[in-house]
C-alpha cells in the first residue's frame, strides 16, 4: 500500500476502535440498553474492503456492523444517536445498534439475523447487473453465517448469474461461544467457494495491507464479469460477543496470543518501518480520532428522544410510484415451442 492509503487506513481503523471503545463505555453506563456487539480486532477488514468502494457500491452488514458503517463513511454522531435511541439517529431511534442503514453511503444496513443480509446483497448485485453498471456489492457476514442456508442459496444464485458481489466472511473464530472447529469440518470457509465454482480467497484479516491487496484482486474479478468472490478473512474477536460476555469459553492465553496480531499495531509497525512515519504522528492521528469520537458521543447524548407520535410512523411509504400503465399488445408468438 502507498503511504497515504496506509495512513488513511490507520486513521479509519483508529476511528472504528475508538468508536467501539466508547460504545462499550456507553453500554457500561446502561445508555445503549440491549446488546452492543463490537468490532475490536477486526477493523482491518472493513477498512481495507470499503477503501475500494464508492458510495454507489453497496454493502450489507451484520449485528457486528459499526465498523462497516463507519468505513463506508457514516456520520459518527448520528451513529451514536442511534445506539442511544435518539430521534436524530440514523433510524430515528427505531433500529438501534444492530440495525443501522445509510443509503447515502451505500450501506443497505446491519442485520440482526445471522446470514440475513447475504441474499439481499445478491439482489442488489442483480439490480446492478440489470443496469449494466460498473458497481458491485459486498456482503459482510461472520463464520457463523457460513452455516446458514441463506449463505448457500445466495452463493449458488450469485454464481449461476455471475453477479458482481463479493462475499466477505469475517472468520473471527467464534459464533458467540462456539469455536469454528466445533461448527464446521473444513479448514477454510473459502473452500466452500469450490462447491459453487466461484473464486475463493483466504486472507489475513488482521493485516490491512493484505486485505487491501486481496480486495483489489476481488474487485477486478467481479468488474471483469467473472462472477462472485468468496473472501475469508481470518481474524479474531478481541472483545466478547457483546459487552457483558463472561467469555468462559476461551482462555486468557488465547486472547493474549492475538494481541500481537492487533491490526492497528501491525499497521503502525508497517508505517514506521516501511514509510518512516514517526510514533508522534501516529499518536496524533489516534488522538484526533479519539477526540472526534468523544465529541460525537457527547453531541449524541444531548439529542432528544424520538417523538412519541413517531411510534407508528415509517412502517409503510404512503406514496405510490409515479408510473403510467400502458396497454401491451402481444405479438403472435404462437407455435414456437411444444
Amino acid at each position, binding site marked *: 500500500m502507498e503511504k497515504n492509503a496506509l495512513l488513511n487506513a490507520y486513521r479509519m481503523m483508529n476511528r472504528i476502535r475508538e468508536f467501539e471503545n466508547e460504545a462499550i463505555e456507553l453500554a457500561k453506563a446502561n445508555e445503549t440498553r440491549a446488546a452492543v456487539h463490537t468490532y475490536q480486532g477486526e477493523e482491518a477488514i472493513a477498512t481495507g474492503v470499503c477503501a475500494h468502494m464508492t458510495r454507489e457500491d*453497496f454493502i*450489507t452488514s451484520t449485528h457486528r456492523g459499526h465498523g462497516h458503517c463507519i468505513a463506508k463513511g457514516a456520520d459518527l454522531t448520528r451513529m451514536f444517536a442511534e445506539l442511544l435511541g435518539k430521534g436524530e*439517529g*440514523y*433510524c*430515528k*431511534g*427505531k*433500529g438501534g445498534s444492530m*440495525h*443501522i*442503514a*445509510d*443509503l447515502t453511503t451505500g450501506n*443497505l*444496513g446491519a*442485520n*440482526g*439475523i445471522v446470514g*440475513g443480509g*447475504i*441474499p*439481499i*446483497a*445478491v*439482489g*442488489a*448485485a*442483480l*439490480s*446492478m447487473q*440489470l443496469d449494466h453498471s460498473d458497481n458491485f*456489492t459486498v456482503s459482510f457476514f461472520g463464520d457463523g453465517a457460513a452455516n446458514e*442456508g*441463506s449463505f448457500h*442459496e*445466495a452463493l*449458488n*444464485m450469485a454464481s*449461476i*448469474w455471475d453477479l458482481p458481489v463479493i462475499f466477505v466472511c469475517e472468520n473471527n473464530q467464534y459464533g458467540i461461544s462456539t469455536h469454528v472447529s466445533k461448527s464446521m469440518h473444513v479448514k477454510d470457509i473459502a473452500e466452500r467457494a469450490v462447491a459453487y465454482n466461484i473464486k475463493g480467497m483466504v486472507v489475513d484479516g488482521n493485516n490491512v495491507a493484505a486485505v487491501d491487496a486481496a480486495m483489489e484482486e476481488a474487485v477486478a474479478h467481479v468488474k471483469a464479469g467473472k462472477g462472485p468472490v468468496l473472501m475469508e478473512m481470518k481474524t479474531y474477536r478481541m472483545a466478547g460477543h457483546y459487552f457483558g460476555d463472561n467469555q468462559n469459553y476461551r482462555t486468557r492465553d488465547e486472547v493474549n496470543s492475538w494481541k500481537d496480531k492487533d491490526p492497528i499495531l501491525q499497521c503502525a509497525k508497517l508505517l514506521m518501518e516501511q514509510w518512516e512515519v514517526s510514533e508522534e504522528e501516529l499518536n496524533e492521528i489516534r488522538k484526533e480520532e479519539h477526540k472526534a469520537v468523544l465529541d460525537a458521543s457527547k453531541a449524541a447524548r444531548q439529542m432528544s428522544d424520538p417523538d412519541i407520535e413517531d411510534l407508528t*410512523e*415509517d*412502517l*409503510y*411509504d404512503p*406514496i*405510490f*410510484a409515479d*408510473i*403510467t*400503465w*400502458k*396497454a*401491451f399488445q*402481444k*405479438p403472435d*408468438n404462437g407455435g*414456437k*415451442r411444444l
Partner: protein
Amino acid sequence: MRKISMREAINEAMHIAFHSDPNVFTMGEDIAVYGGQLRCSYDLYDNFGSERVRDTPISEMAIVGAGVGAALHGKRPIVELSYSDFIGTSFDQILNQAAKIRYMYGGSVNIPLVIRTQGGAGLGNGAQHSQSLEAILAHIPGIRVVMPSNAYDAKGLLLHAIRDNNPVIFYEHKALYKQKCEVPEEPYEIEYTSDVKREGTDITIVTYSAMVGRSLKAAEELEKEGISVEVIDIRTLEPLDMEPVLASVKKTGRVLIVHEACKKGGFGAELSAQIQEFAFGALKTGVTRIGAPNVPVPFAVNLEKMYVPEVSLIVETVRNLIKNN
C-alpha cells in the same frame, strides 16, 4: 365485454407492468420458458427476455431475499413462490427483512417488492401444497396481504401492488385461475378497499378469495327463501378496509365470516374482534365464523371436500342465524 380467466388477467397485468416500467422484472422457479407452475407468466419470457424473466434455482430464501435487495437498489421485482406453502423455506426474508426493514431503518428506504404466490385447497394437492396461510402473513406488520377473488379484481389489484412502494404478498387461489369474468383490456387499478359484491339487508357475509364465489352462490340460494344476504369481499387483509364492513353490520345486525383457512386463529378472528369492538351495539347476535377444521389439508376427495367450507354449509349457517335471531 370480453371475459378472461384470472390467470389471463394476472398475465395481462404483468405484461402491462413490464411494458410500462423498465424497473419491473420477475424471477422464480420455472417461470420463464415453462411459464410458471402457476402458468401465469406464459409469454412474458418471449416478450421481455431472459434478463427480466428469470428462472431461479429452487432456493426460496434467495428468491425472496434477492427480491428485497433488488428492490432496495431501485427495481420493482415480482418474485414468485410456486406454492404459498414454500413461505416456510423463505420466511426469514419475509418476516425479518422485507416486513421490517423500512420501519427498522426509520423510513429511510423502500422495498417495492411483490411476492406472487398461490394457496388453497380443492385440487388434491395435499397438506404441503394447499394451505391458506394469510393469517400468519397478515399478523406481521410491514407487509401488504392482497387476496383477489376474481379476474377483474386480480388485474387491478396487481397493478396497484406493483406501483406500491412497500412489500406486497399477492396471494392467489389455485381454484380460481380458470374462472372467467369481464375484464377491460385497458390498464386500471383497484385500491386496497373492501368491495360489496352483493347488497342485502338481513345478514352480512364477510369473506375473501375463493370463498367469495361460494358465499355469492349461497346468497342466491337464500334469496329464494326470502333471505337477503350482503356479501363483502375484503380483498386485502393489510391494509384492512373495515368501513364498508361496519356500515353493513350496522344495517343488517348479523354477521357471518367465511374463509377457507383453519377457523382457529384464522383471519376471521380479527374481523370478528373488530366488528365487536366497533359495531357491538348493532349486533342482534354473536358474530359467527366458518372456516376449515383444525387439521392439515387432507388428500382423499371426500375428506378434502369436507375440509373446504361448502355452499351448503354457508346456506345452513345463515338459515340458522336468521331463524334463531
